Structures are given as C-alpha cells and as structure tokens.
C-alpha cells in the first residue's frame, strides 16, 4: 500500500485503467468466440449428417444379425396375445428407432443418495437410479398408466378374485456383476454368469415381508401376502390372503433380488439361512448394487457423482446412450452454470428466478434464444405441503390447522415467488387425477377467516404482547413454533413470506433450515412442530401408507403428522378391497372431503418443472408418470457430446 495520498490516487487510477482494458479485451474475445461458435456449428452440421449415414449403415448390419436370434423373442411376444395375460403390448416406444448410439448423459441430482439397497432405500433419487439399473416384473405403460407392459415377466395371470397370481419370467435374463476389484482373487466367485430365476423373485418377497428387514414403506403393502413360491425355475405363484385392490400393483411392481449374492459374504461363503434378513439391511454388495436393467452401476463418489454404464448383456433393446453420470450438485445455480458451460447435458428443474431471467424476461442474448439450450415444462407428479404435528398441543385442534391453511397465500406465492411454475394443490391426490372431489376447492388465502378460526379455538392474545396464547393445563402457552424446512433457496423464500404473514396473525414462527438427512432424522424421531414436506405420487392410489392411523405409531412410518380419523381408516381399508372403478371414485371423493375438513397438512402446490438441456440431446420426451425424465428414449445427435 502506498504511503501518500497522491500515490493512492495514482494507484486507483492505474487499477481503473487496467479494469477498463480487461473489459475491452473480454468484449473482443467474446466476439471472436461468437465467430468460432458459428464455425463450430457448421462443422457439427457436417458431422451430424456423417454420423447419420454411418448409423444407418450400422443399423442395417445390426438388424441382419439380430434376425437369426428372434425365435425366443417371438415366444415372449406371442404371450401378450393371450387374453388371460394381465400385461398388454406397450403403446410407448422407449428406444427411438433413429437413435444414434454413444455419448455420456451428464445430469444432476441435489444430494448424495443415502444408499443403494433397492429395497430399504425409499428416496426419489435412488428409485430413479434403480429404474436404470434394475427392472420390475412389469411396468406401467407410460402413455396409458392404467395398464401394465411386460418387463421381466412376459406373462402374468390371476384368478377371478385376484388372490392368486402366476408370474412367468423370461429365461434369458442375466444378472450384472457387482463392480468389484476383479483382480482380487477373493471375488472370483462373482465372475461366473448367473441367470435371473424364480428363486430371486421369491427372495424379494421374503425380504420385503421379513420383520427384520428395514423396509417399512413397503411392509404394509406386502403384509397380506399368504405365500410366494417358485413353481419351476421361471414361474412364481403369489397367493394373497384376501382379495385386495393393491395386490395387482404390488405383485407387478416387484423386482427380483439376487439371492445368490445376498446370501453370501465377500468371499462367497454362505451365511446361515436365519441371518440373511439381518445381513440384508447392510449387505456389503449394496455399495456396488446390481440389477438386470439396461445400465449397470459403475461407481458412486460421495459428494461428486454416480456413474452408470450401458449393460452390454442386457436382454432387451440396448439404449443408445453409453453412460449416465449423475453429478451431485447441491446448488441449483451451480447446476445451471455447469449446463451453460457444457459440463452438464440435462438439468432437471431449473430454479424459478433463472426461469424468469432466462426464459420469461430473457432477451436475444438468453441461451434459450441463441440456441445454446432448449427447455421444456412438465407437471411433476408430486406435491408440496406443510405438515403439522397433530400430536403436539399446538396443532391438535383442526381449527388451528385450518387457520394455518387460510394464512398461506398459495396463489400469491406461486405467482410471484415461483413465477407461476405450480398449481395449488387441492388435496391428497394429483391435481389432474379423477380421484379429486370436484366440489372441493383449495383453501383460499383469507387472514380474517384464519383469525376467526384461531379465536374460536381459544388462541387469543390475552397478555397484550402481540402473540396469541392459550391456557393449557394451567400454563399460558404462547403460539410459537419452529418450522423444520428443507434448505433450498425457494423454500427459504416462501417460508419468509409465510413467517411474516403469521406475524400479522399473532403467531411467532421460526424457521429452521436443515439438510435432507437431518430432516429425515427429525421426522423419524417425531421431533418437530411442523415441517415442509413433499410427496411423489403414484398413478394407482393407495392411501394406507400415508394416511392410515396405524402408520402414525410405527417407527419410520410415513404418517408423520399423526393423522388419526376412524372414518378415514375405514375408507382406506374399504378402498383396498374395492375393485369397481365407480365405487372407488366415490370413496376417494369422500376421503378427500375428510382430509379437507381435517387439514392435517396445509396443502401447498404441485410444482411445474422446467427442464433445460443441451440441444445436441435429441428426442427429449417427458413421461406423464414417474420417472418423468426417463432417458432411455433420448440420444445424442452425433452419438457423442
């Protein structure tokens, strides 16, 4: 630092000059870059046509080679003509016929997956990775979610009252090898090829039903299964104790688990049969999970990425993209920056301000205008809510919970904070699903009504300190609580708005922003007053997991808010045994009504997501049901990126 005043001024002037020169040089490089980009684009055009010609040639060869081996394929395809088969020919075409093979699809997820045990992990990210690495008995048809398309089974039949299912599995499916250090002689036993058999599917049901296996989210679906047995090597019979609606989806959504792997330790020594379920929860192999799907798991670098690679032994049509890399990027802004710089190909869920600045207000220089990026919107099959812990005195009164819903300015927040990317959530179902009761409107924003309800419930400011209070058990309790919130800029934003609205009502809400893992922990310990949550939805509705009172008291159960309503319990149980669509609809409507009256959640919004991608990615289609951004149909224009 110079010691005199004059020298300082001189230094500042010189610095200013340098800054000016830097700006000029940046502008000039930018112009040069533009010309370069143009040239590159032209080059790419030439390359693309080359690649197309090449791939056409290759396909000709591939089809010719394939024709000799289709004898067994026909057997499986013919089974779909059988009128008893529950599976129907898929109406969706997952692999694009003109797809050019090659390339690495780099996409982003927001946090580290908690683990890769397909059965015990229940987070959306792990489920998504599972759909690439593994396959199910059958899958929902993406275009027609009311019917099932064959996957590992080519034929499934059931008896009249749906208590017995016979699953016929394909016999040409091989398990992947765990991605272990192959030079280590202790893993030699893993090297031999292993076929997926009926035993593996039976093993799945055994594990899912075993009390020692930590799979609470699935336990109440499989608890009514009577027996699961292998009839022969590729046929399984599943018998249910009683006729239940969800038996079909539970049976068809099953996936085999490799018994030969889970029953052994690292050296290939068999465990004692009784200890298998216990070992299953933390089996060594779940660090390098395997499946039979189109991709295989290569590695997971904590905090960095999850890498999948095409499974060369896959039984079905191989997907065009060679590798899928999930980069773990916590910050949505950083994810967008990476997309711009080209180190990411696909960005699921752009942040709302980005959507506004780049797409809504984006001028001619926006990357979406210049063709550097493309985008598409999709209504996510999910909704967000604020859950109130009904086991705490603060929220046990439904008038209080309803008042909290009235105080949430859904429309205003969606319009102004989310830039219109959302739909107010009417109740417990997907907003565009026939199950919604047409007579019920989402609760509007009405502070006067909220104040009235709070007064009725006995929460009045008697001490004059601006905070409502109520005498509970001889003690004056102020209306003060902590909202456990997911630490994301968007959540921070709307929570701040809600907090100020509640202050007007005389409610002191604090927000505690925590990461997903800690949040999960608090949920399990029921250590919260209220929390911000979200549910991914399924097309076929089963309310038991989230809403049945029995799920409120079991550890890791999903009824975290403690929703207990006898009529709702009856409805949920009746729904499980009702097959008639009209009758089901009536029951679902009634359930919607109850939830609306009880307001166990403040139902907030269903997000509308904006996905952005690199234009060299072609045929980017989104599915109606989850996984909505399934990348099997996608391919890179020139086979690489």
């Amino acid at each position: 630092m110079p010691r005199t005043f004059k020298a300082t001024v001189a230094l500042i002037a010189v610095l200013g000059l340098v800054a000016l020169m830097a700006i000029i040089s940046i502008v000039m490089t930018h112009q040069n870059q533009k010309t370069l980009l143009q040239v590159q684009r032209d080059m790419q055009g030439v390359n693309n046509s080359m690649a197309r010609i090449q791939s056409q040639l290759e396909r000709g060869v591939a089809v010719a080679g394939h024709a000799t081996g289709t004898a067994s394929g026909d057997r499986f395809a013919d089974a779909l003509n059988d009128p008893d088969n529950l599976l129907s020919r898929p109406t969706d075409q997952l692999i694009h016929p003109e797809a050019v093979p090659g390339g690495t699809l780099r996409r982003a997820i927001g946090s580290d997956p908690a683990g890769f045990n397909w059965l015990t992990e229940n987070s959306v990210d792990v489920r998504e990775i599972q759909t690439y690495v593994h396959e199910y008995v059958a899958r929902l048809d993406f275009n027609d979610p009311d019917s099932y398309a064959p996957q590992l089974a080519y034929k499934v039949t059931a008896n009249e009252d749906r208590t017995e299912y016979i699953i016929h599995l394909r016999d040409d499916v091989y398990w992947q090898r765990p991605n272990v250090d192959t030079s280590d002689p202790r893993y030699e036993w893993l090297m031999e090829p292993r076929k997926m058999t009926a035993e593996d599917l039976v093993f799945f049901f055994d594990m899912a039903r075993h009390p020692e296996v930590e799979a609470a989210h699935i336990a109440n679906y499989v608890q009514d299964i009577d027996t699961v047995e292998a009839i022969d090597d590729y046929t399984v019979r599943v018998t249910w104790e009683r006729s239940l609606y969800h038996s079909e989806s539970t049976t068809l959504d099953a996936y085999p688990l490799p018994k030969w792997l889970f029953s052994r330790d690292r050296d290939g020594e068999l465990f004692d049969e009784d200890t298998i379920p216990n070992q299953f929860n933390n089996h060594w192999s779940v660090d390098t999970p395997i499946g039979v799907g189109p991709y295989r798991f290569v590695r997971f670098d904590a905090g960095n990425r999850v890498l999948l690679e095409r499974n060369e032994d896959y039984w079905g049509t191989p997907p065009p993209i060679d590798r899928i890399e999930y980069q773990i990027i916590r910050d949505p802004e950083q994810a967008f920056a990476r997309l711009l710089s080209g180190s990411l190909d696909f960005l699921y869920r752009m942040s709302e301000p980005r959507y506004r600045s780049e797409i809504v207000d984006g001028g001619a220089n926006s990357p979406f205008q210049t063709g550097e990026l493309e985008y598409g919107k999709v209504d996510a099959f999910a909704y967000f809510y604020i859950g109130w812990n009904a086991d705490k005195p603060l929220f046990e009164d439904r008038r209080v919970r309803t008042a909290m819903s009235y105080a949430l300015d859904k429309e205003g927040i969606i319009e102004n904070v989310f830039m219109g990317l959302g739909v107010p959530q009417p109740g417990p179902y997907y907003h565009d699903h026939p199950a919604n009761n047409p007579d019920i409107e989402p609760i509007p924003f009405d502070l006067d009504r909220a104040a009235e309800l709070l007064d009725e419930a006995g929460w009045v400011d008697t001490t004059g300190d601006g905070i409502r209070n109520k005498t509970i058990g001889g003690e004056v309790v102020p209306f003060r609580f902590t909202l456990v919130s997911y630490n994301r800029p968007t959540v921070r934003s709307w929570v701040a708005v809600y907090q100020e609205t509640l202050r007007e009502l005389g409610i002191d809400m604090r927000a505690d922003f925590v990461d997903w893992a800690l949040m999960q922990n608090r949920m399990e310990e029921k250590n919260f007053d209220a929390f911000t949550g979200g549910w991914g939805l399924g097309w076929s509705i089963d309310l038991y997991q989230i809403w049945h009172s029995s799920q409120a008291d079991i550890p890791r159960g999903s009824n975290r808010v403690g929703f207990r309503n006898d009529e709702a319990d009856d409805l949920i149980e009746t729904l499980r045994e009702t097959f008639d669509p009209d009758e089901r609809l009536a029951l679902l409507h009634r359930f919607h009504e109850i939830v609306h009256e009880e307001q166990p959640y403040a139902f907030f919004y269903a997000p509308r997501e904006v996905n952005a991608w690199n234009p060299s990615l072609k045929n980017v289609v989104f599915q109606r049901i989850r996984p909505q951004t399934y990348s099997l149909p996608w391919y890179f224009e020139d086979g690489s990126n």
Partner: protein
Amino acid sequence: MTETSKKRPPSPEYQTYGEIVWGQFKKYPVSYYSLWGVVGLFILAMVCPLIALNVPFYLHVPEGVGPERLQGTSYPWLMALFDRNFFESGVDIFFNFLLFYVPLVLLAFTFLTRQRPGEDKAKWKKRRMRFLGIASVIGVGIFIFLYYQDFRQPYVNYKALAELDGVTAIFPFIDYSYRDVNLMAVMQGPSMEHFLGTDREGRDVFTRLLYGTRISLTIGVVAVSIYTAIGLFLGSLAGFFGGRVDTIVLRLIEIMMCFPVLFLILTLVGFLDEPSIFHIMLIIGLTGWTGIARLVRGEFLRLRNQDFVQAAIALGFDRARIIFRHVMPNAVQPVFVAATFGVAGAILIEATLSFLGVGPANAPSWGQILTTGRNTQQMSLILSAGFAIFVTISLLNLIGEGLRDATDPKMRK
C-alpha cells in the same frame, strides 16, 4: 509543606505511548480518514431506524377510524424500536438502545468532564477515562435489563392505517422495514420507490443493506473480542511461564491450526439447530485465536527478560500483577494491529457463511443479499452488497495498515 506542594512545577509534558501512536497515526491521511469512515459506519448502523422503518414517528388516528386502541395521538416509532416481535435479534435492540444512549453520554461527557480550573492535566485525563468506563458499564447494564424485559406489542400495519381517511402519520424517510414482505413487488429493479430494487420476497434491498451494517460490524467486533481475549490469555500464559505450559499451549495452537478454519466453522455450524448471529460470532471467536496467541507469546518471551520485569520479580510482586501491570501493556500493541485486520476477516467469514446459506435464516446480512442476488440474477443486489462488503473491509484494512506503521518506531515520521 503545603506551600511547596502548591508551587511544585507542573509535571513535564511527556507523551504516553497511546498519544505517540495517535500522533503518528494522524500522519497517514488514508488511514486517518478510514478511521472516520468506520466511525461513520457505526453511526449509520445506529441511526438505521431513523432512516428506514415502516413505523411512523407520529401517528394521529381520529375517532371511529381503525382499531380502538390506536385512537388518539401516539408515537409508535419509539416503542417499535424495542419490540421483540419485530426486532428479533439482540443486535438490533443493542443498536437501537445506542441510538439514545450514545448521544446522551456524549452530551454528559462534554459538560461534566470539562477541565476544572487548576486541575492537573493527567488527573483530568484520568477522570475523563473513568467517566467513559462507568458510562459503558451502566450502558451495558441498562441494555441487559432492556433485553430481558422481552417487550412485545401487537402487530399493526401502520402503512395500511395511514391510508385511511383522517389519519396523520409521519414516517421515516424510507417507509420499509428489513423484514416486511410484499408479494406484489418481488424482484423489482432499482427505482425511486426502491433505491436498490426488491428481493425475491419483495423486501426493500436498500433497507436490508442498511440494517446489514449492524450485523457485519457486530460480528466483526464481537468475534474478534472473543478471540483476542482467548489469545491474550493463552499467549501470556505460554510466554510468561514457559516450560510445560508453553509446550501445552503451543501444541494446542498447532492442533487448532491444522484445521482449515472455514471448514471447521462449517462443520460446527452443522451441529447447530438454528444458527443465530451469536452462534456465528462465538464460532468465529473460538476458532480464530491462534494468531493472537502466538503474537502475545512472542512478545512475552521478549519482555520477560527485560530489566523492568526482572526488577518487578525481584521486588516480589505477585505474578498476576507482573503479567497484567508490567508485561501485558507492553505486549498488546501488535495485538491491536492484528485485531483490526481480524475484524475485516471476521466480516468476510460471516459474509461467506451467509453466502453459503448456513447463516441465520432471514437476517438481512450482506452475504444473504449477495446470495439472493446470485439466485435471482439481480445485479443491483450483487453489486450493492458486494460494494458494502468491499468498502467496509477496505476501510478496516487501511486502518490496520496505518496502525501497524504508527506503532513501528522505525517508521516514525
């Protein structure tokens, strides 16, 4: 005897160490003006509510309009300053309190501590210092009393009230608060209504920036006070006693220095349920003391063998007296310099933490404004918060530079 004492010649006009340093410091104009800049920032932090608050100084509600308890003439601004429903953080209450207390003390200072005729200059100076000391202790006492009063009052939307017929209200110059949201005005650009635009929740960014001064300055000063105290204590122990104590303290320092401070802080914050500004200060304070401790230890090692210390030991003074009266005053001058730079560092760490989203949730800190700007692509937010951080850090660093040179006898001008 009395005769002689009266006629005693006035003591020679020698300068204390502080006066020498101050005299030297004034010769560095850049640093000198920076010091006034920082004082200005403190004043700004104090007077924020005078400039920006959505509560009127004066309110007159005629009968039959608005809620009953507000009828008549009232001065809601005064009460709002200590309303814990509105100013949740103790930092705000503290500065609001200073807004009244500091002018009062200054006034008393100028009138009560005038040099009495015939008063010895040294005595006068001592009296002035004593006055300031007592005033600060009383001030802290009153603040603690105020803080634990936990005063709260019901919410009133004064701006909506002022729109009603017949209501007279005089608002501060900017009638926004740093926390009231407005969904009808989100993410606006700079305008006459909002000088720096609004953020994602529709809050006025200029107001938030203004109140952010409080957070940044408090964090800087408090965090550095904490770690200076720890550093002074451990450093003087190590330097004075040497031997085993020295070894233990040095190893402690080395262990602390092994951890990258920012990551250590991030980890510690992860353990907190609801990190508040005070937690952040405490954590910065508990992790930053190593540098100070080493400085003090070095000074003590140097001073321990000086004649005046040896003399004090020979005289049989107890250790506490030697350490605090004889060695410490000579050892603190490098600490002052380090602390000045430390304040700048602490402000930067706080901004970093807020930027990374681990700070207190909706506090109007500069780092938060920066993140918001980054998330919403609003240049006005990024530039203004960045500029505020830049100016504060630069001022503090310039003061530090000047102080360093002023305390260095070789650089004397």
